[in-house]
């Protein structure tokens, strides 16, 4: 029995999970997601991790491997760190065994990942620096429009004639939105336009990673935005990409799940190689 934690320190939220694994059998013991909200993400991650342990009646020493991902490499108590591509690929397969592609859309970046059935990354591409395709941008716009974040998806799906928004530059996109507001465009159509613009970029990104032999699972915080998921499915149809895109109720945990599961894999690999002290 191997006990591992996965901590995904993102720009917008810290996700923590703890797993028990025994060979192929996995038992997901706990999950936590905490919004950063201008707090120190490392302090938040430390507190969240210890709260999760406390809820399970465990101590840090009870875990065999504490794996971080995202921006978590500076956490002082981690055993090992895995990169987001690696963890989202593994987490996507855990959540949806048919997944052979992952589309991680978080607060700052979008990443398209293609993997094999073991979760080994075969290729990946990231969006460029500009934030116009990111969750942070969407969050800013919803704040300007006075809309709560959990209303965005449903409202966007009500849009009937979406307005085109710049997909290249966040500054231009914000200018577009200001113009739309002054022209009296409804919030639903503005949001749907933004979702369409983001989805266009992400669909093009997916096309660059090669042929996906299965489902593309959306992961990261924006995977729960039903408006974006619908826009993604539409964009994939328009781009004539045949791979189905879908999400999962626990998509936001994909990075943390992948970290915990790779931590268990690594722990067992080191044990087999009699190099366990390496992960002390």
């Amino acid at each position: 029995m191997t006990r591992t934690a996965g901590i995904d320190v993102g720009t917008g939220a810290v996700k923590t999970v703890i797993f028990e694994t025994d060979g192929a059998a996995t038992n997901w013991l706990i999950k936590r997601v905490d919004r950063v909200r201008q707090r120190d993400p490392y302090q938040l991650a430390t507190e969240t991790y210890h709260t999760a342990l406390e809820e399970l009646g465990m101590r840090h020493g009870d875990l065999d491997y504490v794996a971080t991902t995202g921006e978590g490499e500076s956490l002082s108590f981690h055993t090992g760190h895995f990169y987001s591509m690696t963890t989202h690929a593994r987490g996507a397969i855990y959540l949806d065994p048919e997944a052979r592609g992952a589309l991680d859309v978080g607060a700052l970046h979008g990443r398209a990942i293609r993997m094999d059935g073991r979760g080994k990354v075969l290729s990946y591409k990231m969006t460029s620096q500009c934030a116009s395709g990111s969750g942070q941008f969407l969050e800013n716009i919803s704040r300007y429009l006075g809309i709560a974040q959990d209303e965005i998806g449903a409202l966007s799906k009500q849009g009937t004639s979406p307005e085109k928004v710049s997909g290249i530059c966040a500054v231009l996109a914000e200018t577009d939105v200001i113009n739309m507001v002054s022209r009296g465009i409804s919030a639903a159509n503005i949001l749907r336009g933004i979702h369409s613009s983001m989805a266009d970029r992400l669909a093009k990104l997916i096309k660059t990673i090669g042929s996906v032999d299965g489902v593309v699972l959306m992961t990261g915080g924006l995977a729960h935005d039903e408006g974006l998921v619908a826009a993604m499915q539409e964009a994939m149809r328009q781009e004539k990409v045949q791979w189905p895109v879908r999400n999962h109720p626990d998509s936001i945990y994909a990075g943390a799940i992948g970290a915990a599961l790779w931590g268990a894999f690594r722990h067992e690999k080191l044990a087999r190689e009699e190099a366990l002290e390496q992960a002390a």
Partner: protein
Amino acid sequence: MSTPVTEIITVTEIIARCQALFDDLNFTYAREWKAAVPGRIVVGYMPFYVPRELIHAAGGLPLGVLGGGEQLEVIQGDAYYQSYICRIPRSTIELGVTNRLDFVDAMLFPSICDVIRNLSGMWKIMFPKVRSRYFDVPQNFSDGVGGTFYIHELTELREMLAEASGRAVTDAAIRASIALYNENRALVREVYAFRARQPWKAPSAEVYLLMRAGMVLAVEEHSRMLREYLDAAAAADRPRRDNSRVVVTGAFCEQPPLNLIKSIELSGCYIVDDDFMLVNRWEQSDVSLDGDPVANLAQAYLHNSANTSAKYEPDPAQKGLYLVAAVKRTRAEGVIFASPSFCDPALLERPMLQRVLAAHDIPFIAFKYAENSGQMQPIREQAGTFADSIKLWSTP
């Protein structure tokens, strides 16, 4: 009864001193060293190797000039070079024309590439009062040919240094200097061996700064610092990570930004060997103190020196095997080729070295940098995914 108090220097204090030396582009330590005793000289040198023993024996301070790094804004230096030339000659010119090297009595430009050779000529024209020398090294490793040539080269350098310092550079003085540098190199080897054994106790950015300090400090002081670091690092309580062990190669001339070294380690790699400052560990074991000291230096270069892309390898069958040996010696799991953009010696050799690694099933990745590169995210992504692939998919 009072007990004697032993001053214990911490890793933090040692590295803070190294960082201050690294950041000081006015070379205050070297200026003060020279001003402390009349008649002292400071001799600048560029990567990858010069016989520092001869400079020391002439009563001089060898001063490593490794470009301007990321802090120096190059304004005038850019006017001297085309855009497809690396950054180190531009920033070195900038150091010169902004009078940051105005206390340097002589400059040595080792035989590393055409750019540095041309820089030696430019230095003569731009700074006519400074003794500038293109320091040639043998490409033929037989004693009768390369050895004879190199002894002649060393003798000319010895004469130049005697003229610059106004004192004879005696055999006895050279032997004494060789002894000091033997000790220094042994300590450098010990630091590298310590890091290869316990890389979590000697982070690469620290080891880098420690070795950079050796470019500026008097050898006696640097050796003391190395001893103190070994004691302090061994005593330090630092967490051990499940990182991949990598060798970094190709960075022997223009230096990477310190953040790049930190980024590689942060991304999940322990650097267990590198070629950042080869001059500190060029001779791989002690140079003999018996007999003719100049001949001994030549012998050490021909038969007992480090391998690098900047050194000719006459036997194609031996090409790159030094890298395989470094991987085995340090129990590394992969190699990162990190080379400056436009670095001919590193980049032209790289495909040949990669072929050798592939033949030995050693994984590798490659990227380029400039000494002022600021964007580390791509490096972190690349090094991080490399570390992941080693940890998850490599076989022992």
